[in-house]
């Protein structure tokens, strides 16, 4: 463990970059998708539904391979502005993970949006708030608070799926372990060490989300009200 510690630290750093970039890009992307999904207009909800269905209904590995190996099949992709990203595995991994988590996050956010009582939106409108202000001050803060446990689960799912980066030559935590196995065939040491790194990561995230939840719920903290709704722990 000690001799391979620098390699695992470098791997953990790469994993963290992948996870943070994918989560941030996915969160931004999930906002329009979620609001399109709850819209009553078919031209809006149908594409959002199709997006969510496609990305949740296929394995992440297929999505990753489609982008990493598949994109190069078309000559016009080589000339596009995205090619510098699609040419190297890191960019492909971030794009695939972000598109994937955006679908899951949109579905979580949709649950939160529909859980905000209609009357509160009406009251805000009656007070003369515009749609953007209502979104920013009434809908989003409550939707995010309600869905925090589900977001915590999604972060952990992204941490775990980031290990797929090792299948496209990236030296993330799993990639480092596979490298050590190839060098020395120290199978148990390498994979158990990698597992320990992931467990530490997931433990820290669980604690951080728990603390954030505790803080965001402080105005509700009473025996009869202080229970957050839990959404399904793992989605389709």
């Amino acid at each position, binding site marked *: 463990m000690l001799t391979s510690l620098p390699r695992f630290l470098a791997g953990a750093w790469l994993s963290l970059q992948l996870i943070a970039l994918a989560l941030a890009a996915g969160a931004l992307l999930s906002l329009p998708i979620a609001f399109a999904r709850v819209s009553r207009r078919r031209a809006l909800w149908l594409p959002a539904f199709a997006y969510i*269905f*496609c990305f*949740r*209904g*296929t*394995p*992440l*590995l*297929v*999505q990753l*391979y*489609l982008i990493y*190996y*598949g*994109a*190069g*099949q*078309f000559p016009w992709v080589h000339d596009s502005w995205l090619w510098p990203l699609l040419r190297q595995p890191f960019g492909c991994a971030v794009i695939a993970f972000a598109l994937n988590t955006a679908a899951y996050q949109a579905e979580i956010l949709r649950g939160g949006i529909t859980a905000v009582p209609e009357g509160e939106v009406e009251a805000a409108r009656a007070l003369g708030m515009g749609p953007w202000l209502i979104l920013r001050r009434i809908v989003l803060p409550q939707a995010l608070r309600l869905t925090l446990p589900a977001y915590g689960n999604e972060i*952990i799912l992204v*941490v*775990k*799926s*980031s*290990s*797929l980066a*090792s*299948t496209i030559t990236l030296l993330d935590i*799993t990639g480092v*372990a*596979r490298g050590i*196995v190839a060098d020395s*065939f120290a*199978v*148990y040491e390498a*994979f*158990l060490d*990698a*597992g320990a790194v*992931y*467990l530490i990561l*997931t*433990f820290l995230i669980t604690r951080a989300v728990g603390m954030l939840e505790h803080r965001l719920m402080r105005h509700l903290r009473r025996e009869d009200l202080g229970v957050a709704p839990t959404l*399904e*722990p*793992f*989605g*389709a």
Partner: protein
Amino acid sequence: MDLKGFGGQILTGAGLTLAVAALSLVAGLVIGGFGAAAKLSSRRVLRGLADAYTTLVRGVPELLILLLLYFGGTVFLSWVAGEYVEVNGLGAGLFALSILAGAYMTEVLRAAIQAVPKGQIEAARALGLKPAIAVRKVLLPQVWRLALPGLGNVWLVLLKDTSLISVVGLEELMRKSAIAAGATREPFTFYAVAALVYLLFTAVSVIAIALMERRARRGLARV
């Protein structure tokens, strides 16, 4: 779409994908049953073991579990047998997915069992039903109804996680598509075909699960 003669291969791979997912679902259900019983046991050791099992398996990437069992299994079996024994992708994959499904099912079944009011079992016992009958006639039908959404989720996760076994060489849908992609130099086409097949499996599963849930609810008043 022109599959350049790889259609049959991909179909074989799709069949293997379904078989692996179904076998791990059944194995996972058995493991999950024992796991849930252990979690609800009054014995502290059993509870601790079950907690450790679900925490470890759910906190580590699926791919890592698979790689550990694939490479580690070879080392372990060679050590036991005293000669080189290689674990194949199918064995390691089935084992890994079963352990994974078992961990998720443990939680699903535990929550479902706990959701059945305790008074019902007590009432059944008071009516003179033997413990085994009370479990089979009163507890299990309700556990089934309460657990179905969770079990459906595990099935959908398993279907997709079978693709990971392609990494250790099992020729299921994903690996067959990769072979076709390499031979024809049309990776996008063949991975898109694989994606469509997975999407079809998911769509059919979602409909089937919804029908099963409706059937399991048939005794309840419509809200």
